């Protein structure tokens, strides 16, 4: 299925750099196969500058392979891609200078302090000596770890280490920060902290953020989401538009007199259907609709249940499966293995 590539930028007023600026990431017909296995199949999309863009899909869907290609760690079998205006194959070195990378696995030296890790990174990426200290202070501030600057990384918790890695990824002022499953394996509180960090980075440093996740609730943070399954992008839009595409909000009412309420609501122009025990009303926006609805019903209302489509519904709608139970699928372990071999 060909992906619908929407520009998306206009829909998110929070995205800076909209308009005529070139995309931060541009992918055209990229395919990556490992022998017989097609990990990524002819995908195309663009990410605008300053956007938070999420790749959502189950393990083995091709998310990490796509990130590897964009970060020049893997070559596409066919197709082309640019990051920060540079071609990922022919200008790999330039791409590497202008991206920040946070992998799923930790890549810190825990025998060094946070500051030493950052200093090492600064030198690797050619940050001028005069700017190193300033940038270290700045990124440590961005992830709220300034007071732990001189501590050995071995004393850091998993969440702190991840935040330090995000800080390190930002040290050389990359144009695009790639986060591969940034909160996997972390507790909800830490995940929330990391998301605060990510929003702060985007806001204060203006960096474009490209992340992969298989958490639905996490993808909601993105301006746009690409749903990827079996190596193909099956939907790409803003979270709201994606949810809108699978149906509208519904409100279920249980009243003292369902027949009376049904008539009253129909007269008022609502789309109403009789449900098992009560009435189901289709509305544009459940939050705004509840008050007027109860008033219009004109009879005592016992219960109100609202349902807004979630990304789970979206995923189910497009793939016919829940994102959570992906295990036991023929292709999945093979993807994982092919990918694992590549990463080692």
């Amino acid at each position, binding site marked *: 299925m060909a992906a619908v590539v929407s520009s998306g930028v206009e829909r998110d007023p929070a*995205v*800076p*750099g909209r*308009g*005529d*600026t*070139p995309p931060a990431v541009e992918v055209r017909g990229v395919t990556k196969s490992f022998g017989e296995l097609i990990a990524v199949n002819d995908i195309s999309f663009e990410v605008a*500058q*300053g956007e938070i863009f999420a790749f959502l899909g189950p393990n083995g869907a091709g998310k990490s392979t796509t990130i590897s290609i964009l*970060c020049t*760690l893997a070559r596409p079998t066919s197709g082309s891609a640019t990051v*920060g*205006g540079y071609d990922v194959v022919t200008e790999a*070195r*330039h791409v*590497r*200078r*202008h991206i920040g*990378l946070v*992998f799923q*696995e*930790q*890549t*810190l*030296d*825990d*025998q*060094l302090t946070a500051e*030493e890790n950052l*200093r*090492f*990174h600064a*030198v*690797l*990426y*050619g*940050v*001028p*000596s005069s*700017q190193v200290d300033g*940038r270290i202070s*700045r990124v440590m501030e961005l992830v709220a770890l300034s007071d732990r600057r001189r501590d050995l990384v071995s004393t850091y918790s998993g969440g702190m280490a991840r935040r330090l890695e995000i800080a390190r990824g930002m040290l*050389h*002022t990359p*144009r695009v920060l790639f986060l591969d499953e940034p909160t996997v394996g972390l507790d909800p509180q830490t995940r929330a902290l990391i998301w605060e960090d990510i929003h702060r980075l985007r*806001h*204060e*440093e*203006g*960096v474009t953020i490209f992340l992969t996740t298989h958490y639905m609730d996490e993808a909601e943070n993105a301006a746009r989401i690409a749903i990827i399954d079996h190596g193909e992008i099956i939907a790409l839009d803003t979270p709201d538009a994606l949810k809108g595409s699978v149906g509208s909000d519904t409100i279920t009412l249980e009243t003292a007199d369902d027949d009376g309420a049904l008539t009253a609501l129909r007269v008022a122009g609502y789309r109403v259907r009789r449900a098992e025990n009560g009435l189901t009303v289709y509305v544009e926006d459940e939050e705004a609709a509840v008050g007027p609805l109860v008033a219009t019903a004109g009879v005592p209302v016992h219960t109100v249940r609202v349902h807004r489509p979630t990304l789970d519904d979206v995923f189910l709608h497009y793939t016919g499966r829940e994102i959570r139970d992906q295990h036991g699928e023929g292709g999945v372990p093979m993807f994982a293995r092919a990918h694992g071999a590549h990463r*080692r």
Partner: protein
Amino acid sequence: MTVAASPARAGMVTTPVRQSSGAVAELRVVGMVWERELIRYVRTRTRILSGLIQPVLFLFVLGYGMSGLVGTVGGFNFHEFVYPGVVAMSVVMTAMFSALSIVWDREFGFLREMLIAPVQRSTLVLGKMFGGATVAAMQGTIMLVLAPLVGIELTALLVVQMICLELLMAVAMTTFGVFVASRISKMESFQVVMQMLLLPMLFLSGALFPLNGLPPWLAFITRLNPLTYAIAPFRQVIFEAQHMSAVAKRHFSTTVTWFGWPLPTWLELLIVLCFAAIFFVLAVRGLSKTE
């Protein structure tokens, strides 16, 4: 050289860093990799200690034990003979350990941080090489403290000579170690490598016994060992600073021979350098294949 002008970057609130590249930037990376090696060495005191214990065991237990068997020849003891070999051993082991820490870096992910950076692989190997050489020479210098205990006299010149030779030895061993480490993907293999490679290399290098008078097949193997050519000059400079009788000199020979031809010192050093250069190229290649 600076990076080419960037495309439009509206929305970037922070002024982007102008990253430097080219020879100076690569040199900075060499310095940084070197510094990290030193920090890690100084921070793991257990490593310094364990690096001392084994050679000390060899020196005192093997040295004095064998002295009884070998006896004193021309006023010279076996433990005096074995001292240079034991110092060399601690240098070699420290260098090798430093290089093989790449296996750890791989396991804990830090290797990835280095390999994805926009720097040359040779720069990383060079940094690792200098780092390994420095810590190994430091370890070797600590071993100098033991010299008076076994009756070896130290002069200022000798100390300088020893440090230079330790550095050369360590450079060769670090590049060799990086090459080996680039081929090891599992931590479990590390112990195997240490036992299957390092110990035989040390035993077949002349560090612990004189190379003359060996059976031909064993003599042949020792001549293939790069360490043989690093340890012989090391022992030569130490022995030259001692007041040895002619009998002792003949008995505890320091020269390496090829089919009866004694190799000059400069050739031995050249051989070590050549090995170092070959291992360097192999190490860079090994790391390039990794990612």
